[in-house]
């Protein structure tokens, strides 16, 4: 029974990883950039919501409404200020620039918020759950996170497939030069994509902050988890990212059930196994064009 419980908890955790990973996947899909500051941006979102709650008594939901547009704006500016410039420097430059940015953000948070770990206080919601059997209980927050993840992924899918901006993003992703010839401004399209990606990262960070405690060093691990979810699921597919997140979450939950110190290790091992035997991911999708 404890194994079924681990499976259920891992499944819900997978929703969180999918939410965390979709922004990383979007930036990579559109610009072929891995944003190495992704985890730090998520944690920064959590810090801002926690700070608003502690200092001004702003409830987390309102904090979230404040943080998401701020993150989107930060994404727009990041693209305009740093990524556009670094994209001109070839394949390596964006990696190096975002790695530098990750170090800056991590230490800036350390300087501003100290190394103390904190958590976003959500009152009774944090411990509430629906008891299925004596051993298995569905945590309400986990269910909420999973639902939000499915909504965000579905929303992104609809945005990409049905709307004008989605069409522009897909066109620029497959061939920026031709897209420019068709009258699209690739830099603006990139900026929109980065804005969306950072907004989802901050959203995921806030859910992380409600679920567990975090500190400025938490971001590094989150980047790795998000990356693992993307690769396990298969690049180029948002639903693959959800599946990848679930596989990672279940692996971690089962690992932690064996020994709490195996949580991260079990996820890494599953990632490496997928890399060895199915390097294009479980739900490999042929990237269109």
């Amino acid at each position: 029974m404890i194994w079924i419980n681990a499976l259920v908890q891992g499944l819900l955790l997978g929703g969180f990883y999918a939410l965390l990973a979709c922004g990383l996947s979007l930036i990579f899909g559109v610009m072929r950039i891995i944003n190495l500051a992704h985890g730090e941006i998520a944690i920064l979102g959590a810090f801002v919501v926690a700070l608003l709650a502690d200092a001004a008594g702003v409830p987390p939901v309102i904090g979230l409404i404040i943080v998401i547009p701020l993150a989107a704006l930060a994404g727009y500016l990041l693209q305009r200020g740093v990524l556009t410039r670094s994209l001109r420097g070839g394949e390596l430059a964006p990696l190096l620039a975002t790695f530098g940015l990750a170090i800056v953000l991590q230490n800036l948070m350390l300087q501003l918020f100290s190394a103390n770990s904190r958590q976003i206080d959500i009152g009774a919601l944090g411990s509430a759950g629906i008891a299925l059997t004596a051993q298995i209980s569905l945590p309400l927050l986990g269910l909420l996170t999973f639902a939000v993840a499915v909504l965000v992924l579905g929303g992104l899918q609809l945005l990409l497939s049905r709307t004008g901006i989605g069409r522009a993003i897909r066109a620029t992703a497959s061939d920026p030069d031709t897209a420019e010839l068709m009258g699209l401004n690739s830099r603006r399209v990139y900026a929109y994509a980065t804005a969306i990606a950072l907004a989802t990262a901050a959203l995921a960070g806030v859910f992380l902050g409600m679920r567990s405690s975090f500190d400025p060093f938490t971001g590094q691990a989150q980047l790795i988890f998000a990356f693992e979810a993307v690769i396990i699921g298969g690049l180029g597919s948002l639903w693959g990212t959800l599946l990848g997140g679930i596989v990672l979450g279940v692996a971690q939950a089962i690992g932690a059930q064996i020994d709490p110190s195996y949580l991260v290790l079990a996820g890494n091992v599953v990632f490496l196994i997928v890399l060895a035997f199915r390097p294009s991911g479980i739900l490999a999708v042929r990237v269109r064009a």
Partner: protein
Amino acid sequence: MSTAHGITVRRWEPSSRIFTTAVALVLVAGVFVPFAFGPNVTNKLTQLFILIILAAMWNALAGFAGLVSVGQQAFIGMGAYATVVLADDVGTNPYLAIVLGALIAGALSLPISLLAFRLRGGQFAIGMWVIAETIRLIVGQIRTLGGGTGRSLRATNVYEPALRQAYTYWLALALMAALLIAVVWLLRSRVGLFLQAIRDNEVGAASLGVRVVPAKRLIFVLAATGCAAAGGLIAANTLTVQPNAIFGVQYSAFMIFMVLLGGLGTLEGPILGAVIFFVIQQEFADQGTWYLIGLGLLAVAVTLLAPRGLWGTIVDRTGLRLAPVGYRLRGTDPAGAGPDPTPPLEHAGT
């Protein structure tokens, strides 16, 4: 030197002859440092040599093979742990253990490359990080390796401290010289030409018959061996290994910073970057977070504003060349004196 159609192809130039001689003299003079200065100076210089090794290895990987890795700490840690195990448990001479540890880690990097090379670009970078983290977590679980608290290196305690410091220093000097010579030799070989072709255009190089993956794998193994040698030296210099420190991602941050600042893809740049980083570290490391914020900002600024780094910028401005790698074309001057009629052209240079 060969002349055809009035153009000379030259490997060696006066500047590179002078530089190579000067480097050789500095290295020879370096041998005598422990006799002339105290253990404090030899300790600091050992740290500098370790940084130069790390920068040169990361540069070989990223600058010559186009493989940006955020996980080279995997090999630093493997080298350090192999040194402790060989010296303390197996009973090997500790300095021999550093060399053997580097070779073992180099051998282990081969199967690791099979996994890591399935990823490309940014995915490779962070995939290497996952591999380093996995090794860190596994090492932390192994009780004979000291688990999460690590172990201390005891085998060197048989030497008197000043002598121990001098031995570590000499080995660091020798390994640095050997690894730098290996990089120069590799770049001057056929593989070096392959690598530069790959760096400039991988598909084009492959279509001309360059075997891309073996060439990259060779550099990967060399970089792993060099990083592991640095790890062994770190263990001998600090006398302790701890998984979270020796497998820490901060080593990648330092390597990236040194190479970017000095000049990615040049031979001289990373050495310059390591020296500057060493000075910055001595001056500002006690500033803690602000020091790291400054390093990060500088890395972003150099990437965006001066992507060829300090050395690249110097070369662009002056045409100066020091290391004898690559060739240079010059229009011959009929009078045999005076300035060249045509500006120098870099060909397959660094």
